[in-house]
């Protein structure tokens, strides 16, 4: 008994010791997923948004590594919301996990002003053949701070209207070269066959500043509405904004897709691709999805029109996913080598000629030269000129009729907008679901916007 007890007593520390030793041993090789890096090889970590074009880039990256034996690439691919939160936290706190971050024209000028990003002008100047002047001017400007580019575009998008040519023909409707929203509403009513059958139009209704707010903001702009007047007085209960939001909510409630308050890009892509709706107003990058026969049953039957307007000459948005180098990165040169490869003219050729990717899925909307490529013109003739035109005409400085104190078409380029836009979008989504009225949604939204506006009134 005594002997056993003594054994028992000594075993606890022994077990503890063993576990601690094992932990220590394993801690030595922290991050079991990490690849050991060889001598003289730099590992560049890239944070990227998991959209289809980016996944294509990841699949082509081994070619870059083969051409640059001194550089290894590691990708952290996250969905848009997670990526944005993660990248913002990392860059803002100097976390230093990433050498390259994928950000948009919402972040770039703000972060450049904060000193978080590396000025890319010297790198571009030192890279022969990179051709900075080839970037679409509005896209380039949207990624610049004080005339210097702080991120380089991978792809750019505007918004446009997609419609089923066959259904329009059957109904005897001719889509005008520049439709108005009133016309679109009328066509939606004509082509709506009622609940459970083919509906008139798909419009996003999911909460999120990058979800329902993106198309809705363009509607608000073209109805003459704005978030703030030049004195930063919130304007969300103005007659123009009310008219626009009421129009959008009525249209999607009366002739829109089922489950509208939970629909985002992917849901609309499916509904339109399955022939369940006659029109869809969304990002120009949708063309790659709905024209892909593997993902869509209506490929080849789709017509395209510019973003519908009311009181402004154009109303498409301007958005670009771009690559930047955080100031904290110790591997800026290696990072630039990969970034310049991924945003070069040669990359677009490479992706277009790749049998797995093809010309319909190249990253569009970054370079003007893309629109001169014969192979691309051949497959994308129906929509490519509209994308270029939409991007060139987008006007982030003057998005609506009246002057505004902020920049941005489908967003207000201030740090508070991620939160403000999301709160307002929740109200709008509730109105689309029929839980509250548009007036109630906008009264509440106005309160949120006033709180934010006050901090800019000084």
């Amino acid at each position, binding site marked *: 008994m005594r002997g056993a007890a003594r054994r028992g007593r000594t075993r606890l520390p022994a077990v503890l010791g063993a576990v601690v030793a094992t932990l220590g041993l394993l801690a030595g090789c922290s991050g*079991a997923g990490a690849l050991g890096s060889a001598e003289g090889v730099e590992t560049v970590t890239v944070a990227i948004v998991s959209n289809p074009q980016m996944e294509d880039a990841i699949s082509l990256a081994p070619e870059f590594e083969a051409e640059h034996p001194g550089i290894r690439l590691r990708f952290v691919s*996250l*969905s848009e919301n997670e990526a944005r939160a993660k990248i913002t936290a990392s860059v803002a706190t100097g976390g230093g996990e990433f050498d390259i971050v994928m950000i948009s024209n919402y972040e770039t000028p703000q972060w450049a002003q904060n000193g978080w990003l590396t000025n890319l002008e010297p790198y571009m100047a030192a890279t022969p053949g990179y051709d900075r002047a080839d970037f679409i001017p509005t896209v380039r400007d949207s990624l610049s701070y004080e005339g210097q580019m702080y991120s380089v575009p991978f792809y750019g998008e505007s918004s446009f209207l997609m419609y089923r040519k066959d259904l329009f023909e059957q109904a005897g409707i001719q889509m005008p070269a520049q439709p108005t929203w009133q016309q679109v509403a009328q066509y939606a009513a004509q082509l709506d066959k009622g609940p459970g059958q083919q509906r008139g139009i798909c419009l996003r209704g999911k909460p999120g500043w990058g979800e329902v707010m993106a198309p809705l903001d363009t509607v608000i702009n073209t109805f003459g509405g704005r978030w703030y007047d030049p004195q930063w007085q919130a304007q969300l209960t103005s007659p123009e904004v009310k008219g626009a939001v009421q129009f959008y909510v009525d249209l999607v409630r009366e002739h829109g897709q089922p489950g509208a308050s939970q629909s985002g890009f*992917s849901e609309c892509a499916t509904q339109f691709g399955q022939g369940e709706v006659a029109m869809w107003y969304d990002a120009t990058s949708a063309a790659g999805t709905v024209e892909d026969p593997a993902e869509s049953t209506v490929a080849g039957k789709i017509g395209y029109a510019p973003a519908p307007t009311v009181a402004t000459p154009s109303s498409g948005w301007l958005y670009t996913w771009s690559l930047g180098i955080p100031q904290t990165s110790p591997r800026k040169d290696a990072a630039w080598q990969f970034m310049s490869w991924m945003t070069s003219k040669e990359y677009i050729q490479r992706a277009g000629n790749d049998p797995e990717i093809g010309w319909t899925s190249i990253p569009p909307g970054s370079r003007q030269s893309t629109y001169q490529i014969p192979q691309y013109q051949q497959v994308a003739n129906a929509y490519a000129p509209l994308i270029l035109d939409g991007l060139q005409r987008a006007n982030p400085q003057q998005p609506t009729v009246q002057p505004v104190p902020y920049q941005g078409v489908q967003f207000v380029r201030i740090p508070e907008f991620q939160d403000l836009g999301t709160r307002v979008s929740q109200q709008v989504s509730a109105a689309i679901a029929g839980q509250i009225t548009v007036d109630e949604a906008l009264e509440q939204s106005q309160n949120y916007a006033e709180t934010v506006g006050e901090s800019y009134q000084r």
Partner: protein
Amino acid sequence: MAVTTSTPPDTQEPAAPPEPRRQKRSAANVWLGVVAWIVGIAFFFPVFWMVLTSFKQETDAYTTTPKIIFEPTLEQYEGVFSAGVGPYLVNSVIATVFSTLLVLLLGIPAAFAVSLRPVKKTQDVLFFFISTKMLPVVAVIVPIYVVVNQIGMLDNIWTLVVLYTGMNLPIAVWMMRSFFLEVPGELLEQASIDGAPLWRTLREIVLPIISPGIFATALICVIFAWNEFFFAVNLTAANAGTVPVFLVGFITSEGLYWAQLSAAATMAALPVVIAGWVAQNKLVQGLSFGAVK
């Protein structure tokens, strides 16, 4: 989560003494059985739908009239494998196994102390443990992120091991305390009369009795650690990402992803389902063990 739903609903009542109104009682049993099955199916259906969707093409995955009949494909699973799930799996295993071991190592003595050998202010201690679960994780992520960043432990799997240990410890102590309280007092008295030292009492008398309970506790810890997303997504990057972080890489804001996401999610749920299935008997035993009070 998947574990509890994958086991068939337990409709058996504890053996009732024979009663004159047996007929009435068996009718009630039938009703309880029906309710249990409905609840079971309601819980299991999303899992079933996820597995079904994982064998679909993207075009079949999200249709207004959901498709039950379709041409099955393994394409989505191929896609998940080619996306490189390996390192994420290894990280998840490390985070789960080591945090669970640490929880047991610290939790068993703690639970023993607050149940069979009540220390001073046991109630306060117990309340202190559970109070750490009262704050939502999002409220503490900023200080945690700053601290982890300062000590250079961002993107390190051992950071997650420590955090998951802290996350699961209060639940484990509370769960195991209820199991310890089931141990008959006479046995302990007997042991102390025999002069058995504390450690020996714990190891040779208490632990064998409550081993199903420890099993159940360990499995709960495994499930929580395996499924944890918030810490993982905020504190890891290229090296220490776990399976839930890998999953969100399939969500895209501009494309179709439901089928592939379902395939990835099915694979992510599989290890836990298997663990639950293997431990099924012990688990049921353990869960009913502590819950009879």
